[in-house]
């Protein structure tokens, strides 16, 4: 499998070099630097030179490179590299050049733990944090003389069937928070037809539950029709409640879903129940995808005219397509401008618009967008004349926003039951949020 993991900064300096097999030579760092970092032509994340394969991902300002010498599993490699980045973020807040330089000892330590002879081992951050701690002094187990009962408990857990949960967790108040977060993706053509609209959702749970609770979780997806709603309110204000009632009838079709490793996949396969023993604290319970009946929160109507070679006229109308009780926050519309734009004049009915030359776009920000309302931006871009007139690629207009208590897919949580041998009562909270994934409109 993996022969080594290398980290580089943008200049091509080698920040971390960890070989797992003898065939990973120091020289390979130079080869990667020459062949990939300083070669602008590279268009693939995988490069095989000789018998060596370099697979890299880029994150912030560093390259994370895996070296393999065999017909390795490329799926694992990239998945692992992204997991490594994720670990870095969870450990250091941000995984960039500075973080790597300041924590290189810890990174070596992590690599030693998550890879053995190039095979990925346990990469669960909660488990790793039990025995690889950022703060060197605070942890008792960092000393060799730590009581053996502690360490063997840790190692049991690191390898056990429920490697994600300790057994001895206690809370005075047992609570569970469920966040349904949806990314709605839209691609609309210049003529206003929806080319692609889908929702990728994730259900994030924060479990503060004592003992070893077994949870059962139910959604209104088509396959659990007929379940009774238990005291958890669905998202309000999907326009006129139309969607909500339809959803209450239990007819959201999830195209596909994926679960955290704690979910018993076999059970889901057989009777569609989602049952699991949650890790302590925050984790992503499931991810799903829906493509049918996607409720688009915003309608965008864009008219962009190129007048001669020196001017572009914009008229962008955005209409909120959700109930008037709701409001979206942090609505940002990015309207691309040609590369040779000299200046912009703009007018908006709401919010502020600003030209950002470094990104070649007009950024229109609306802090609060109440349901049902419509706002318009009209603008003119004045262009400098260029000697070689190159066509403007007209990148799509894009939007970001976040909207609480609204799900584009119409999904809602029907119930969350907690079973524990102490039979305590627990409080459950559900929150819904829709965000823009890649919300793009061509013009």
């Amino acid at each position, binding site marked *: 499998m993996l022969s080594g993991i290398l980290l580089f900064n943008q200049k091509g*300096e*080698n920040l971390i070099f960890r*070989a797992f097999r003898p065939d990973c*030579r*120091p*020289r390979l760092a130079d080869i990667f630097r020459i062949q990939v970092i300083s070669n602008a032509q590279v268009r693939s*994340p*995988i*490069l*095989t030179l*000789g*018998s060596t*394969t370099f697979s890299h*991902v880029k994150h912030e300002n560093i390259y994370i490179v895996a070296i393999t*010498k*065999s*017909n390795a*599993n*490329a*799926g*694992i490699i990239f*998945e*692992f*590299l*992204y997991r490594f980045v994720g670990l870095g973020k969870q450990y250091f807040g941000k995984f960039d050049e500075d973080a790597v330089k*300041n924590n290189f*000892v810890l990174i070596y*330590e992590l690599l*030693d733990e998550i890879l053995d*002879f190039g*095979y990925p081992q*346990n990469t669960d951050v909660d488990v790793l944090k039990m025995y690889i701690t950022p703060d060197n002094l605070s942890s008792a187990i*960092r*000393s*060799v*003389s730590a009581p053996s009962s502690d*360490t*063997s408990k840790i190692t*049991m857990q690191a*390898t*056990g069937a429920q490697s994600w949960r300790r057994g001895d967790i206690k809370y005075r108040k047992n609570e569970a928070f469920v966040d349904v977060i949806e990314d709605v993706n839209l691609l609309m*053509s210049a003529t206003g037809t929806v*080319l*692609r609209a*889908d929702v990728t959702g994730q259900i994030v749970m924060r479990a503060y539950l004592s003992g070893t609770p077994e949870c059962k979780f139910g959604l209104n997806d088509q396959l659990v029709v007929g379940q009774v709603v238990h005291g958890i309110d669905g998202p309000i204000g999907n326009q006129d409640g139309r969607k909500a009632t339809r959803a209450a009838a239990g007819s959201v079709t999830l*195209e*596909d879903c*994926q*679960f*955290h*490793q704690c979910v018993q*996949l076999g059970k*889901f*396969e057989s009777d569609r129940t989602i049952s699991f023993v949650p890790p302590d604290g925050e984790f992503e319970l*499931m991810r799903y*995808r829906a493509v049918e009946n996607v409720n688009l929160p915003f309608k965008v109507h864009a008219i962009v005219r190129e007048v001669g070679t020196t001017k572009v006229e914009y008229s962008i109308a955005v209409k909120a397509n959700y109930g008037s009780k709701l409001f979206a926050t942090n609505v940002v519309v990015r309207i691309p401008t040609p590369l040779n734009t000299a200046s912009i004049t703009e007018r908006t009915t709401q919010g502020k618009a600003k030209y950002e030359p470094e990104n070649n776009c007009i950024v229109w920000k609306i802090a609060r967008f109440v349901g049902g309302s419509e706002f318009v931006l009209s603008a003119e871009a004045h262009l400098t004349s260029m000697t070689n007139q190159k*066509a403007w690629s007209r990148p*799509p207009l894009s939007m970001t926003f976040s909207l609480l208590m609204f799900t584009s897919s119409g999904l809602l949580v029907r119930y969350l039951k907690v079973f524990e041998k102490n039979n305590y009562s627990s409080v459950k909270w559900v929150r819904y949020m829709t965000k823009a994934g*890649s919300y*793009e409109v061509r013009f």
Partner: protein
Amino acid sequence: MAMNRMRSAFAPPRKGETFELRAGLVSQYAYERKEAIQKTIMAMTLGKDVSALFPDVLKNIATADLDQKKLVYLYLMNYAKSHPDLCILAVNTFVQDAEDPNPLIRALAIRTMGCIRVDKMIDYMEEPLRKTLRDESPYVRKTAAICVAKLFDLNPALCLENGFLETLQEMIGDPNPMVVANSVQALAEIKESAPETNALQINPNTLKKLLMALNECTEWGRVTILSTLAEYKAQDVKEAEHVCERVAPQFQHVNSSVVIAAVKAVFLHMRYLPLETQQSYLKKMAPPLVTLVSSAPEVQYVALRNIDLLLQKQPDILSKEIRVFFCKYNDPPYVKFQKLEIMVRIANDTNLDQLLAELKEYALEVDMDFVRRAVKAIGQVAVKLESASERCVNALLDLINTKVNYVVQEVIVVIKDIFRKYPGYEGIIPTLCKCIDELDEPNARGSLIWIVGEYAEKISNAGDILGGFVDGFAEEFTQTQLQILTAVVKLFLKRPQAAQGLVQKVLNAATAESDNPDIRDRAYIYWRLLSNTSDANAPKNIVLSEKPPITTTIQSLPPALLDRLLGELSTLASVYHKPPEQFVGQGRFGADAVQRAAIEEQMQHAKENPLAAAAAAAAVQGKAPEGQSNMENLLDIDFDGAAPASASEKPSNGLSGLEGLAGTPQRVESPSVGQPTAANNMDDLLGVFGNGSSSTTAPGAPGFGGMSDSDIMNGFASMDLSSSQPPPPQQQLDNASGKKTNEDLLSLF
């Protein structure tokens, strides 16, 4: 403060750095020693040689600080080879640590020992490894399991002697799922490097254990187990069904590599199941595959390449999902290109409208490479779906009107392919001919000329168009020259009076002025064909005979290779669409195999003829080292001075080097191209314009098979070899006699 100090280590080296470090390493204060170790490791990372500090670092190995221990171990792993003798000093600590009450330390010790590839260390590994394999802590056991693979890599004999393989095999039944996964992983690696050990055997009993562990172990362990399951050959239908049933839930896993591994396992096992069960599994795997497309670009790329393979085997599984493959503006080019290919593959009558609208959109973007591929995709769809052809042609005509140079050129190439499949679009030829001045690429020029030649009778000014090309014949690319030649001959055969002078001129230019053998040969063939007086129809029958329509312009892998690659899903081979041996330098496995084969051969010889065997042995021994030195791979040359631990490794590096240098996948032609090109040459002979990359005759109907047999017979019969005497060989080279033949030709008219 500490941060600043660390930063400063990244700054340019100061004088006497090694000296400073050494002072720190032997300091009487623990924190100074620790800091010095950290600095040493940092210097090591930067590529500085700090091996001189080996003895001083080693002094710090016996410490109660776990951090420091780990750092010292890291240093040891890197430099042990340069100080094999001093390593013996560390052995004691390792052996002690391997019995530490703390399982983390036991695991750390055994993990590190396996990475110190020094003979002396190996001698002392035996006992700790045996103990840790049976350790009470699963964490230590799972580490020890991998360590067996490390030891096998260093010293297979020792592994076998101590029965470590058997222990590993027993560990497949371990109650802890992670131990199971690592044992399987270690065995799989051992089996791959030394198949004769037959380390990993799956029987109904182990199968059961694997399926049990599958649902409980970590995501990476699942991939290991799933890959093993995929390689396992089910004994009967029932077992295959059972495997599929147990594996299918893994489609829902959040880790994409688990999903691909599960798809692979099910895909390979369901072959034995009844058709309707297969269909239901195919249906089940579609949504997870689609979900992979919304992951990070690199993961997406791997998934897309794999989906491409699956679609070649099962073309219909994703035809409803075409929208997910629409390119996003920000997708990296490698993802976009792959999406295009997949879209074309799943195009059908129902999704056609969406697809075409999307492709037209892409064709208007600015990335030249992408636009060209989009245009090409439109052509591929047209050739694939007859019902689509008209709409595609209209779309292409719209694109010509954009007047963007590279778009127009690509459109012409693509339309040529459409003409080769469907008759009845002659109406658009005038539009095409209008862009003649914009074409500057040989492929596009060649395509237009081919169209003009093919439809010469319908183009009133064909003579003028071709005349222009003939005038500049000498400046054209070879590919275009060949097309000019053929097109002019076609025109002449169709409208003799219009092209008499032209054909004379071009044949002259091609035979007398060109030194390219292809062009000369083809010109001579035509010339003789035309000079043939006995049967006036012969040239027409040969040059203008009906060509079989092409079936597809979409590249597909040959079935045998495809089946092989389906067994390699998710690996690099599936990303490159090439069998592993083409890009993996055959590494130690290959070299071992060569060595083994040589030894076996010698033994065979020895049995038959002892004397010859001795000679052969001498020869082999004499040759081998020489071969190795020639085959050094630049990448594998070891400049850090550390010698490979085992001698048996050296030849492998050499071999792999040669393999590698010769065969970088990006630059290696895919084996699939071989067949089509052969067919194309055939086509060329028949006057069809052949484009190595885009025209693919279906494997079932190779070049010749398409041409009806009777045509060939007629063609040859009417040539009447006896009366039309080809010029003797020496005449061909002789200019004077060349002129004579020309006169012959003239007298014809």
